[in-house]
């Protein structure tokens, strides 16, 4: 168990969302299905830090600036 931000996760990591950034973006993340406490899989980390996560059958791309603000726990 390691506490990090999402941009630090690597391809293949199973992660748990610990804390989302405040504000409108939080509501948008929740609507898309990413909530605090959710378990996701990081399926791609692009050079520069853009992250692609998978939740069930859904794939969501998250930009570096946003990924930096999402606190996660590595499984």
């Amino acid at each position: 168990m390691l506490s990090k931000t999402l941009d630090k996760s690597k391809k293949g990591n199973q992660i748990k969302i610990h804390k989302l950034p405040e504000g409108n973006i939080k509501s948008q993340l929740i609507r898309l299905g990413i909530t605090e406490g959710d378990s996701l899989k990081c399926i791609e980390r692009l050079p520069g830090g853009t992250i692609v996560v998978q939740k069930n059958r859904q794939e969501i791309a998250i930009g570096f600036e946003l990924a930096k603000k999402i606190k996660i726990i590595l499984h």
Partner: protein
Amino acid sequence: MESETTLTNESEILNSTLQFEKNAGIKNIVLAGNPNVGKSCFFNFLSGMYADVSNFPGTTVSITKGYYKGIEVLDTPGIYGVGSFNDEEKVARDIILNAGVILNVVNALSLDRDLFLTLQLIDMGKKISVLLNFSDELEKRKIKIDTKKLSNILGVEVFETAAVYKKGFDKLDDAIKFAKTGKQDSDLTKLLLKKVDGTIPQSEGLLLLEGDDSISSKNNLTIGTSDDRERIYIGRRNRVTEIIDEVEQEDSRKGEIFNLFGRYSLHPLTGIPILICMLALVYFFIGDFVSQRVVNFTEKKIGREIFEYHVKSLVGNFTDVEIETTSLNNDGSTELKTFSFPNGMDSNLQLKNEFQNFIITKSPQIEFHFKDIIPKLFFGEFGIITMTITYLVFLLFPLVVGFYFIMALFEDSGYLPRLATMLDRSFNKIGLNGRAVIPIMLGFGCITMANITTRLLGSEKEKSIVTAILQFVIPCSAQLAVIAALLSGSGIGPLLLYVSVIFTVLICLSTILNKLIPGESTPLLIDLPMIGFPKLNNVFKKTFYRSWGFMKEAGFWFFVGALAVGLMDITGMLKIWQDVLAPFTTTWLKLPKEASSAFVMGMVRRDFGAAGLFHMDLSIMQKTVSIITITLFVPCIASFVVMLKERGWKEGLLVWFSTWVTAFFIGGLVAQAVI
């Protein structure tokens, strides 16, 4: 009790052959759903009209309206929820607030994403029916959804459909007729009763509870905060998860959709080669096949040799005409011969015969010079009928069809959002996020349409930057068509020069704008749709409708442009304009003086301007300079008007004037360097 009501409803549904009485008390029918759920297919079916169907957010940008059995049908942009997070959402929100009946289209394969909106619509107290689309794909992917149970939990009717195959469309009447308010979250209902005044409709009340700023300012009333919104959203999300656990079964949890191509297109190491391969295919298809083989045939053979020749000789029968012919002798030399018919060809049948025999034996190049004003205006060099129709129908149309076909393939494959993801970091450097790739790619189709799609961008700053990029540097399909035709056969060199100049301008422009324009840029957050080979049926349909739309839109302005240039030619204004611009055109751009008439046409449509260069005798480098200048030149009238609407007068005019300066400045720089 619950199951009983459902049963009666079902038997009602089975027996019903719905005939709507005029309006039937239904105000309107609104289609709502997440992006990529196939809303537009339903809209097309219901309204008999065509709405753009696409596999990425942002295509249903303006409200599409039609009628079904006398009731108004409205399509909305794809949204993940009702809110005010961007302009598209605001459009959808207002339509939904005013909806009579909502058909909520849901993607059966991403139910956990889509049900959030469904629950929100139910919480708003709206009358809805759920259309479970892509239900035919469930079996293939070993997913089971208990529709009955879902219907019971939601308290609304759920219909299985497969829009691409029109499956389940026979139930749409029932879906409309039996739309009802579902089972609302009881906590929210209590909260609504307690906090919101009964005069405010429940739908707006819910958004007020959710702290929606725009609705707050509209009613001059603030009830919820963004914290309240988060709480409500989390609650709703949890309900979605519970519902999914109840109704959905996946036979093998490991049967995840794992698409190698989709994954490879994300990472630059593999994604860039994929992009290059795609662009190469586009180049061979458009640059080689369509712009050389097809256009050679349509433009030269059908357009000039058959269509124009017959029209012109028909007119020449009755009016003063001089016909210039250039023919090639066996030894390679050329021979000029002129036939004069001061009273029309029919008045001198002997010479007419001689002329006709001459063209049969020598097959020369033929130019008709009409002496009278009216024939000149309609059938002359810039003839409203001859030139316009040749350019529009025989040159542009095949090329535009080619481009729209490629664009449709790209859009429907689910590739664009992945391209957006791959390019995100590069876009960050110019104050954008990867999402901006969508309006920019669309710009290669049509700038006017792309201008509207800038709405899906998160902030004003991003919208300004992308709008400027679109007007300055992105050539639309019609323009690309002419460029492809102009450069065809002159090798890769001029093409590389053109691309690198335009690309450099793009980088400089966006870097400067990023520094100059204040404000924030939003980070990338994008849902990646499934990737797959597009349904060709849909691709052809889209290509057809867009090409048709192009002809309708562009056709008019082509005639206007031709008339303007024709009139300027006859009144001598074209000469004056050419003389005024001559120092620019001849010394700075190093082009013949006549090239400035292309800029008159270019103000009407850029592709039209480029087309004006077509019949000029230019060297390859002169061609390259002129297409660079025309690409950077002012946007066409249609996109100019849309830009003013979207971005306001100040910004629109600033962009318009700046394109003049940039086009001539950069074009000249290149000319000085290479000619």
